Structures are given as C-alpha cells and as structure tokens.
C-alpha cells in the first residue's frame, strides 16, 4: 500500500491500434485509486505521431483534459521526433518535447513503467 510514480510509455501510433487512447485511459485510471499515484506520459518511437498538430483527438480529449488539470503534460522524446522528420512547428502546442537524457530522468524517478 503506497503511492507510486508510474511512467506510461506510449509506443503505438494512432490509429492502427487502440493503445493511443486506451493507454491514456489507463493513465487516468492509475490516478483514480486511494493512493493517487503520480503518473508521467511519454511518447516514444511511432507513438510520437500522436503529438502531431492535426491528429484527431475526439477519443482522447477527455483524458488529456483530466491530465492537464492535474498539471501533467504529454511528453515526447526529441530523438523519436527527429528520426521521423517531425519538426517543432508540426507539433500540437500542449506537448512537451524532451531529450533522451530527460527520458532517463523520468525512468530514474519512476517506480514502475507501463508500455502501451
């Protein structure tokens, strides 16, 4: 029985699989228990396509709003963006680009990770 910090990584691109939205539902769910776990959301690999400005968010908006109200930003690995040729101006304004060194900090802070 303890509060944990969980790093949720989202590796699946939208919309080929449902992990892009059900991963966020699980993130919000993880904060819903009695221990009110701390969560980080990190997009890696093909998951970073979710950060594109024009992505249809109709299925994810409510989870993103809930996380935003709790002060949680969606983090996106810079190296994954670069490998895919995604520039800063292509991104939605509410995502935070972090370098791989900061990914290592998130890992260091996490008690657990969950991959989606």
């Amino acid at each position, binding site marked *: 029985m303890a509060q944990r910090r969980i790093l949720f990584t989202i590796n699946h*691109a*939208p*919309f*080929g699989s449902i992990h892009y939205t059900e991963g966020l539902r699980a993130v919000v769910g993880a904060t819903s228990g009695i221990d009110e776990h701390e969560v980080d959301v990190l997009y890696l690999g*093909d998951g970073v*396509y979710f950060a*594109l*400005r*024009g*992505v*249809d968010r109709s299925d994810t908006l409510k989870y993103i709003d809930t996380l935003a109200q709790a002060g949680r930003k969606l983090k996106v690995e810079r190296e994954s963006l670069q490998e*895919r040729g995604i520039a800063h101006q*292509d991104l939605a304004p509410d995502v935070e680009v972090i370098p791989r060194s900061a990914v290592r900090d998130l890992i260091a802070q996490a008690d657990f990770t969950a991959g989606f």
Partner: protein
Amino acid sequence: MANLYLIDKPFADSALGLAREDPDAEVVLLQDGVYLSVEPLLAARKKVYAVERDVERRGLSSKIGNDVKLIDYHQLVDLLFANKVLNFA
C-alpha cells in the same frame, strides 16, 4: 491492370521492396501505412495512393506530398476491382 499493393505499416519492408521492383506495381497506403516514406516508390515512378480518412485523422494532410493521390473508399473499391490486389494490410 496493375498489381495493386495494399500496404499497412507492419509488413511495409517486404511489401515496399516487392512493389518497388515490380514494373506493374501501384501502391495504396492505408491505416498506419500512411506514415510510410514513399520517396523510394516515387523515385521508381510508382503511382501511390493513400486512404484520405487515414491521412486526415492522423493529422498528415499537410505533410503528405502532392504526388500521393488521396482517395476515398469509393475510389478504393474501383481500384480493387480494376486491378490485382496484393494484400499487405
């Protein structure tokens, strides 16, 4: 009648390799296949289509080149019946 390659991302490597060297190939990108880089196909002068809905919901409309023709499902059905379908989705 072309060989119409329907390509999603998971099998893209072998499908694109086949299509690039197939003189009769045309390619339809669908689902996560619309994320694929099509430069090698275009360089090999292959006709490339992408399913418009799959491009739009992924926010790729402004990123996808003019040399890729966006199609709706009615156009896709016409293509399916007019060609030999190679299933890589």
